[in-house]
């Protein structure tokens, strides 16, 4: 139903489900499809690589409805986002990938086609996936003035448990400046022409024809080729090593406070030599910064926020500019974002880190609703504030609900690595607030969903705070009452 998150999350699974998948894997690979054409486009980026694979499939059996998409081991481990659609449609298809067990060196995703196909029925399947941590800077060190170039390493052929008539792989760099690319040898069984051709920013491998079912270790060992593409990359490579997001809901103040603790890392080439401030000043003056330097970041925050704060270990950081947009009704399409341009205290050179805290308040009416018939409150919290092209290595989202919340239901947009419930104590709390912490791994710019949380808070729980404070006041009055009756005079 929703795109899957990454391989590690699936490894914690019940044994029964494992058994059921292996049976269904075997039954689904009963050669009921044939790929008439597979076209894969690999869009190279900084820390993220977008892969779009189009399968033109033809059913060989009647009533074939489950199609298997297989990935090699390395690719499956780097895939953080996986979505399948029918060509021309917007609705993603159901992918029954949970659980996913490796079978013969490949990892399989079962895609449920909406309608079963008759014999010789054809359909075009478009599979989009995002790979993380497949590129690295090369050369690994660069001085302040040098260019930035990255290497992408990956497997060449698209594996499939069905026969493929023809296959073509295109690797597209963001700019037409490719330094080198591998020309694989030993694929004469599938092609007679030039294996690799380059034109401007695209390298085309193929076409390869008549590939037998390739989802097996035997095929991988014999025919799968490894390619390395070395290209210039003109934007900084942003990586967030850790994101801790805390969302605190207040009913008395009708406010949702979101606070992010971000560890920012520049995953470009490490700095060779020392940082020369004068070089940096002259580059900034002429507006020609080297491509691997991060001078500032732009965050697109939700509309209707106020009281944003940005500080780090040293204290408040004032080098930021926030442009606010007015509030929009709950669940309306976000057309305008509040923009925050952050400038860290120092420009981030390759390999440098910067840790900071960014938070804001937004009216609760923008993200929460109350269903009077069931007494349920529903609130939506975005998983992350997406920075285009950045990868988040580890993320933890903690949602703190008001005191006395019961019947808590959590609905994340994609399955988390772990979910934890705990109690969080803050100002004017007596019993503490229930909080839900979800942890994720390898988030990309496509992971911009909302976490929905439902909960109930009875009126008595709302009054818990005033009751606690009134008891405190009452104690003061009691002390005063007793004190007035104590006679402290020295003489009668």
């Amino acid at each position, binding site marked *: 139903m929703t795109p899957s998150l990454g391989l590690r999350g699936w490894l914690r699974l019940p044994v029964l489900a494992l058994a059921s998948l292996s049976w269904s894997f075997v039954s689904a690979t009963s050669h009921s499809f044939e790929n008439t054409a597979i076209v894969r486009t690999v869009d190279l980026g900084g820390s993220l690589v977008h892969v779009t694979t189009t399968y033109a499939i033809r059913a060989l059996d009647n009533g074939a409805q489950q199609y298997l998409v297989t990935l090699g081991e390395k690719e499956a481990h780097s895939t953080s986002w996986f979505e399948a659609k029918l060509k021309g449609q917007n609705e993603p298809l159901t992918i029954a990938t949970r659980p996913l067990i490796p079978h013969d060196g490949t990892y399989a995703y079962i895609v449920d086609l909406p309608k079963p196909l008759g014999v010789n029925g054809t359909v075009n399947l478009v599979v989009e996936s995002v790979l993380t941590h497949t590129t690295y800077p090369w050369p690994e060190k660069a001085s302040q003035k040098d260019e930035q170039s990255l290497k992408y390493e990956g497997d060449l052929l698209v594996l499939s448990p069905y026969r493929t008539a023809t296959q073509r792989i295109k690797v597209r760099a963001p700019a037409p400046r490719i330094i080198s690319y591998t020309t694989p040898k030993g694929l004469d069984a599938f092609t007679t022409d030039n294996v690799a051709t380059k034109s401007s920013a695209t390298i085309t491998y193929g076409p390869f024809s008549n590939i037998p079912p390739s989802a097996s270790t035997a095929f991988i060992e014999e025919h799968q080729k490894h390619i390395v593409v070395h290209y210039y990359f003109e934007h900084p490579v942003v990586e967030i090593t850790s994101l801790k997001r805390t969302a605190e809901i207040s*009913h008395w*103040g*009708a406010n949702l406070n979101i606070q992010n603790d971000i560890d920012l890392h520049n995953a470009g080439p490490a700095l060779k030599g020392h940082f020369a401030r004068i070089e940096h000043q002259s580059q900034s003056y002429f507006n020609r910064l080297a491509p691997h330097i991060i001078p500032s970041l732009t965050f697109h925050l939700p509309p209707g926020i106020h009281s944003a704060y940005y500080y780090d270990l040293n204290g408040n950081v004032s080098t930021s500019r926030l442009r606010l947009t007015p509030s929009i009704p*709950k669940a309306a399409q976000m057309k305008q974002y509040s923009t925050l341009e952050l400038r860290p205290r120092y420009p981030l050179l390759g390999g440098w880190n910067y840790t900071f805290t960014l938070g804001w308040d937004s009216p609760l009416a923008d993200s929460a*609703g109350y269903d009077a018939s069931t007494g349920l409150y529903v609130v939506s919290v975005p998983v992350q504030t997406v920075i285009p092209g950045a990868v988040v290595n580890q993320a933890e989202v903690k949602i703190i609900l008001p005191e006395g919340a019961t019947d808590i239901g959590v609905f994340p947009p994609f399955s988390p690595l772990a979910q934890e419930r705990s109690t969080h104590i803050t100002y004017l709390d007596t019993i503490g607030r229930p909080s839900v912490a979800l942890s994720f791994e390898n988030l990309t710019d496509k992971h911009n969903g909302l976490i929905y949380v*439902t909960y109930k808070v009875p009126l008595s729980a709302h009054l818990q705070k005033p009751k606690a404070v009134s008891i405190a*006041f009452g104690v003061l009055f009691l002390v005063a009452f007793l004190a007035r009756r104590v006679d402290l005079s020295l003489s009668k």
Partner: protein
Amino acid sequence: QHLHSVAPAFSPYVPVSFLSYLAFVLLAATFGLAFYFTTLPKSTIPTREAVVAIVASTLGSFGVVALFCSVGVYV
């Protein structure tokens, strides 16, 4: 979830813009009542003192919660 888009937006018991004025009014009343409490005569059955104390405590508690929210702590 689709319930989220359908359910009416959240509205607090007290509108937010009133909170700071409410805080001021309630806390001023609490201060006044506390002062009055100190002027009450001592008696064996402290009914009046107890009533004043209870009223002042409740007013004060709502005042403190409103105060916290109006300065941005959002309890």
